[in-house]
């Protein structure tokens, strides 16, 4: 079980106008673990995350080569349905971006895209996902009002629930707590620890402490390259590369 990988990335290169954003990235994301991508701002963490569900397609100037395999299927070359591939992953971005519809419809959105219109099934799913992120009791009386009425922390959990509703195998979180207050951040972090039983999780962060708290597996990146990766105790107590050593010193 431990050795099974959800995503296997090999020789991934991303560049724009001869300038590398990601260089020769080889990375395996193990199942049912939290993998933390750590590194200073601008080191390509977010780009790596976005290439995993091909949001890089949105930026036409980006050139991508290499392999990103999910279930043995290379999504970069795959002629298979990109929409289905993206539904295997739930994305959580830096700021919550609730869709401009009601709380209920936010969660039902992804399910409806799958073609499911059965009201009972939708109701069941909305309740289940909201409970999963601990939001149900807070919003059950106003499911049909706008998510603008929620606090930022609640909105972020709503976005998480929305992502879970499409039954992903993987959660991609891009600095998910950077816009939140410490209390809401803690709720999200605790959620991640709980959710890893059922999902594999990738968290991008530049906060060292968060990495220490969450990680089962740390990947340290610097200028588009993976410098070091491994278990957190080993990596943080005994860093090998000068970049990580410096980062650990400055970070504390």
């Amino acid at each position, binding site marked *: 079980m431990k050795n099974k990988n959800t995503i296997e990335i090999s020789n991934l290169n991303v560049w724009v106008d001869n300038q590398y954003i990601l260089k020769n990235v080889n990375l395996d994301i193990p199942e049912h673990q939290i993998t933390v991508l750590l590194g200073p701002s601008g080191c390509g963490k977010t780009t790596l995350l976005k290439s995993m569900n091909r949001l890089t397609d949105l930026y036409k100037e980006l050139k991508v080569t290499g392999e990103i395999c999910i279930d043995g299927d290379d999504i970069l070359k795959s002629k298979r*349905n990109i*929409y289905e591939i993206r539904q295997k992953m739930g994305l959580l971005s830096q700021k919550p971006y609730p869709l401009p519809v009601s709380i209920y419809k936010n969660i039902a959105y992804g399910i409806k895209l799958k073609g499911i219109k059965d009201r009972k099934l939708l109701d069941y799913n909305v309740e289940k996902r909201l409970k999963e992120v601990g939001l149900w009791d807070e919003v059950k009386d106003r499911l049909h009002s706008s998510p603008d009425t929620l606090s930022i922390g609640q909105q972020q959990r709503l976005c998480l629930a929305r992502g879970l509703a499409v039954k992903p195998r993987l959660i991609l979180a891009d600095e998910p707590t950077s816009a939140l207050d410490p209390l809401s951040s803690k709720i999200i972090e605790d959620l991640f620890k709980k959710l890893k039983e059922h999902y594999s999780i990738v968290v991008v962060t530049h906060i060292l402490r968060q990495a220490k708290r969450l990680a089962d597996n740390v990947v340290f990146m610097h200028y588009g390259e993976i410098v070091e990766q491994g278990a957190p105790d080993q990596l943080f107590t005994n860093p090998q590369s000068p970049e990580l050593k410096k980062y650990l010193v400055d970070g504390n």
Partner: protein
Amino acid sequence: MRYRKSFVELFYKILTGIACYSLIVILGYIIFVIFKKGIGMLSLKMITTVPSGGYYYGGEGGVLNAIAGSFYIAVGATIIAVIVGVPAALFINSHLQHKPRMQSFIRYMLDALWGIPSIVYGAFGFMLMIYLGMSASLLAGIITVAFLITPIIIRTFDEVLNTIPKGLHESALALGYTRMQLAFKVLWKQGFPGFITAVLFAFGRGIGDAASVLFTAGYTDLVPQYLDEPAATLPLAIFFQLSSPIPEVRNRAYAAGIILTAMILIISVSARLVSRKFSKTNLK
């Protein structure tokens, strides 16, 4: 299901693309029609002579009177609009910097002003003119057009001033600048390219607008010498000549159309170039 989704996506991409490209086609078509119709009659004489006696029956002459009139009116109105508009725009961005509600209220009013149709300005200008005991003249035309383009100058200039980083304001004030010095030294210098764009933009509107000068500027076959003389304008010259039953006169209206379109094209492209250059230097 999966193919349908991609198909729908492609369909809308093509549909919206067609809508977008059709705008280029429309613009090209309008310019093509104007140029094709008028190019035969276009000559140096058109822009260097005033109408001769039999001009409106197909006789000799050109539209110099209208070109000059339009030019005088647009220049005069732009000068007034700059005198009134520039300090107003600077004021919004210097003295009112710490009153954002006031700022957005003023911008809101100016935007609404921008929307008032030019025929209403024309009717108002006409009433003002009668009230002041003036007759239709260059000056009355200038004043009316000035009313029309002042909000344009303020808002266009203000948009650019608004993009100047607020940190600059603070550091200038911290250095002991008064708000007036901030306005006329710092903001003015930083926003100068925006000022040029605003002036060009307003000038183009002044040259092209007809409904506001219809009542106020009068019409004459001569190049106006003084402010109290009536003045012809290019849009009105085209308008009047188009309604003539004589083909030669109509043809000359088409040629005058080319002249007007070319002027607007030049003004509009140079305004765009200035603002693009500005946004480039702004990025650095």
